[in-house]
């Protein structure tokens, strides 16, 4: 029973990580540069959800549900993504990718300090998507928020997949990500596609922030944690692989939730308190980074790396 509850929590956390990692890899493919602000966009989404709930409160009888807040936050974050690209990417697009990487780090610091100035350093929580109750399946009780997060994140990821695989716009965005020069040569407005990619990536990060900030709260410095998780997810899943980023994010979250709880799940194996230190959050983090190093060493293309090649 405990395992299933942990699994639900891990999937909810992983689904939100996946949204962040997905946006990270979309921008990486479209621009060739790492967007280090992606984690701060998750943080911004969390605070945007809190601010939006406060703004809508006078118009809404009772507590504003997160499900109403989420579309507003996602749309607003998409606009922020386009504005962000106008400052962080387009002025530097003809420079080496490292210039964009540095500009995203700089703007991330601006975002963190702006959030600190506006909301302060204390943790805050956005409203739950529906409510804070539990859903019971026999003896199993799972927070409705966790289930809602899984469903909403899965819908957003499926929506992104459908956009890219079934629509002309999505195909143009993929073509831009694969070869910007040839995309332009067949009539695609590459700058528009890249701006749209930033919009989509930032919207997904904002949605992740709105989904996470109820259960895990939000503080101005949270972005660093999320960008590290996104980076690890993309490394595990395969640099540039969209499906790999989602799978990597789920694996990280399940590991973070389940590993520290192993003594509770299988007490017979880990009955001794002497091993308690091994299953702390700190040890889990150390082990996670060690696994990433091992993957980089033994399988640099990641666990699900795309074997895309060019023939001569």
């Amino acid at each position, binding site marked *: 029973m405990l395992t299933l509850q942990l699994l639900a929590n891990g999937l909810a956390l992983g689904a939100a990580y996946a949204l962040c990692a997905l946006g990270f890899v979309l921008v990486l493919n479209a621009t060739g540069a790492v967007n280090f602000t992606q984690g701060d966009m998750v943080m911004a989404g969390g605070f945007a959800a809190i601010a939006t709930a406060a703004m809508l409160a006078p118009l809404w009888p009772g507590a504003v549900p997160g499900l109403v807040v989420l579309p507003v936050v996602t749309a607003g974050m998409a606009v922020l993504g386009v504005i962000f690209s106008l400052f962080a990417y387009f002025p530097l697009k003809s420079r080496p990718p490292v210039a964009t990487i540095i500009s995203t780090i700089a703007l991330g610091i601006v975002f963190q300090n702006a959030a600190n100035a506006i909301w302060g350093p204390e943790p805050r929580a956005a409203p739950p998507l529906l409510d804070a109750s539990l859903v019971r399946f026999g003896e199993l009780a799972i927070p409705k928020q966790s289930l809602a997060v899984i469903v909403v994140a899965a819908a957003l990821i499926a929506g992104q997949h459908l956009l890219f695989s079934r629509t*002309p716009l999505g195909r*143009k965005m*993929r073509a831009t990500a*694969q070869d910007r020069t*040839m995309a332009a*040569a*067949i*009539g695609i407005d590459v700058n528009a596609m890249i701006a749209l990619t930033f919009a989509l990536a930032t919207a997904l990060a904002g949605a992740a922030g709105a989904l996470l900030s109820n259960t895990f709260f939000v503080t101005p410095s949270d972005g660093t944690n999320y960008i590290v998780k996104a980076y690890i997810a993309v490394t595990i899943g395969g640099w540039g692989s969209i499906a790999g980023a989602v799978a990597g994010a789920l694996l990280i979250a399940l590991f973070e939730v389940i590993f520290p709880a192993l003594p509770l799940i299988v007490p017979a194996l880990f009955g001794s308190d002497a091993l308690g230190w091994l299953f702390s959050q700190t040890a889990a983090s150390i082990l996670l980074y060690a696994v990433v190093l091992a993957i980089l060493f033994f399988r640099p293309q990641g666990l699900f790396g*795309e074997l895309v090649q060019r*023939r001569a």
Partner: protein
Amino acid sequence: MSTPILRLDGLSASYGQIAALHEATIEVRADEAVALLGANGAGKSTTMKTIMGLLKPVAGRIEFDGRDLSGVATFRRARLGIAYCPEGRRVFPGMTVRENLEVASNTDGAGTHRRVAALFEMFPVLAQREKALGWQLSGGQQQMLAIGRALMSAPRLLLLDEPSLGLSPLLTNEVLDRVRAIVGGGTAILLAEQNVGKALAVCHRAYVLQVGRVVRQGAAAELARSDDIRAAFLGA
């Protein structure tokens, strides 16, 4: 004889300090295939890239259908009706054959479907490999896909850069044999090609480039008979 659809007037281009094209004046009419001949480094690909807006000219003028292309972005040149099939093919490696074609279409769903069907008829091997990813195709198949992708916008001018590069003589013939059919379909062609004999056989006129300068021009049949061209390019 029709009016020129493309006119290069004293066009010069360079890569940094290295000049690659000197005051080239070239015309392509709407109903013809024109060959650009020359050895490696003669300026053929530079001419193509400059026409497409991928390289900024340092002097001269490019006119397409009477319109000056100065300052016109690459994607807008494509939308005006210029298609580019580059050296090295550059198909989208992670997209299927059908997706590579569909993404280049500039018409609605039904029109796109019709154009894909027409291209599958022109290149039957693409129909057989419809669901294969770009990187999974052989060099010849990629070349056919690159040409097919360029034709998906029903362009008025096709810039075809070294289509025979890396292909066997048999596949080269298969690809270049399509040139006259494409022109017959209403698309003029500017063909950069090192296979001079074949290029002169399928094109109406030709320009010969040497170290970035146009040194000879004329009807393809005339040039094919010319002693100096035969000696320089055809090993005769």
